[in-house]
């Protein structure tokens, strides 16, 4: 049965694999090019006094090498979801569209077993395809995006989450296919639904999946942090909550009180108002914890969709 499932979807997996391979090659070429340009530029020590005259052209070639960066981020952003939907939407819908469900559902195995096998093989293939591309993106975000993996634009395309997004999209495609019974419609509905779920999770859920860290500017490390909020809190308070809120406006009216009034320095205002500057953030060392938590959210959602698909197909009798 695993053979039969594989045989049915084989050509789709091969095409998807070929497209992903092309993306991987593009990323490797662009990333290597960019990496080389960066190395050349940093070897010139351009920030030091009396820097080489080649600094200008080296900087130019680094920036021209980064032209693919934005495209790469967009591809990394779209690929897992689109691949999941493309592979998931026909799982049930194509069989119903070609009436082959009447063949498959009248062999000796129950349609629930048939569906579980199809979903398992499809989910595995999706995970393998996206999973194979993820290390390439992982390397590329390091090479081309210069670190900062915790920042949303890089977080989304590296680590475990692309595989989890793809599995979610796959199950979403399968469920929509089972409900609307048209591959094209399932895909067309899946894109906005998947996008909405991703957007809502990214905007409202991700930052709280792992308790964020509050720190004063003095301790803030220079890079690889995802800053969620920053502002002034009363001295002795390291985080907002329990009636304590960000008080950035009072500092702003102190430093810049308006026409004709004395202007104070930030430092003076801080001590005057008994406030200190606090940054709320997900630091770089939360990367894997946050990756695991977010992957967990999407895999759990995928499981729910999987169960709904099985129920929908089990109940379906024209």
């Amino acid at each position, binding site marked *: *049965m695993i*053979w*039969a499932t594989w*045989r*049915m979807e084989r*050509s789709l997996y091969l095409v998807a694999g070929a497209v992903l391979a092309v993306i991987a090659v593009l990323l490797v070429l662009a990333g290597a090019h960019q990496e080389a340009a960066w190395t050349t530029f940093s070897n010139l020590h351009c920030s030091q006094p009396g820097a080489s005259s080649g600094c200008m052209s080296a900087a130019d070639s680094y920036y021209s090498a980064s032209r693919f960066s934005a495209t790469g981020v967009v591809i990394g952003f779209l690929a897992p979801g689109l691949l999941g939907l493309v592979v998931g939407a026909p799982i049930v819908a194509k069989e119903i569209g*070609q*009436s*082959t*469900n*009447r*063949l*498959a*559902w*009248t*062999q*000796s*195995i*129950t*349609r629930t077993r048939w569906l579980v096998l199809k979903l398992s093989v499809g989910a595995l293939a999706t995970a393998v395809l996206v999973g194979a591309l993820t290390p390439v993106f992982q390397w590329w975000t390091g090479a081309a995006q210069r670190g900062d993996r915790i920042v949303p634009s890089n977080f989304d395309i590296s680590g475990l989450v692309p595989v989890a997004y793809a599995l979610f999209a796959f199950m979403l495609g399968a469920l929509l296919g089972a409900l609307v019974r048209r591959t094209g419609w399932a895909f067309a509905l899946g894109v906005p639904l998947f996008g909405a779920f991703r957007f809502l999770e990214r905007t409202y859920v991700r930052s709280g999946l792992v308790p964020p860290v509050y720190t004063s500017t003095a301790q803030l490390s220079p890079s690889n942090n995802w800053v969620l909020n920053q502002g002034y809190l009363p001295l002795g308070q390291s985080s907002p909550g329990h009636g304590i809120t960000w008080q950035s406006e009072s500092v702003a009216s102190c430093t810049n009180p308006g026409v004709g009034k004395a202007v104070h320095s930030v430092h003076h205002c801080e001590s005057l108002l008994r406030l200190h500057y606090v940054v709320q953030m997900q630091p770089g060392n939360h990367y894997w914890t946050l990756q695991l938590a977010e992957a967990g959210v999407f895999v759990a959602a995928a499981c729910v969709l999987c169960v709904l698909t099985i129920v929908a197909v089990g109940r379906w*009798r*024209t």
Partner: protein
Amino acid sequence: MSTTPALEAMGLGKRYGHTWGLRDCSFEIPPGRIAALVGPNGSGKSTLLRMAVGITRPTAGQVRVFGHSPAEQAEEVLRRIGYLDQERPLYRSFKVAEMLRFGDKLNPGWDSATARQYLADLNIPVESRVGNLSGGQQAQVALTMCLAKRPELLLLDEPVAALDPLARETLMQILLRAVVEDGTTVLLSSHAIADIAMVCDYVIILSASRVSLADDIDYVLASHRLLVGGREAIAPAGTDVIAATHAERQTNLLVRVEEPINDGPWRVEEPTLEEIVIAYLRRAEAEGTLSFDDPGAASGTSVHGHAPR
């Protein structure tokens, strides 16, 4: 001794929106029969077969396959059934050999040798892609898939529809062999009543979404007579007139009889199965027309026994 019927329908009905595709359908097919399901297009033949195999859910009543419900005991039903859908669905991108492998993987009782033998007899190369075969060849591959499953009950929706006369003959022989060798029960729907008369021993007539007759063909033939008489002749007592055709000087009645007709103004002839089937279909059509076109007449002389107010 009571044996579980191979297929049993009890008040089975299926409604599509406001119209009934099949209604009040009750019959039993004892094991080992080759039953024919006949009726005009749209009379609910495919719906009945799909409900028996569990693809379609009944709106009313029940259907049992060897005593099992297709909806609740799917596994018990599926491994006993070989089902040929009207559309002969196959995976068109598969080679014929891959279709057979598919059958092998999904059916514990798969008979690979028989399947290959059938296809060899039919001159269908197993290395061809299913999508490249002709419609008739695809139908034969689909049928081979059903037979190789070695089912106890074969449900075949128009198995001979796309076949040439020679292939029809071959198919009928294959069916007969399966029945004789394995004791398989067959229910096949068809428009070719001549073919049915050749192999079937049981007939179910569906018309206007209802069962008009379900019985052994031998009994059906024995219990119907064609009466030829003058225009003024009255049907003998104890007979049920199925169809009457009037010519200028004579009347032909097809009647259902309980006991032999010996006297009276009638010349008594034995009708063919085809004549009986057509008589039932005509009657159903006439009743349908009556109730649709002339509601007054329908309520006055109610066919389905509505109580007068």
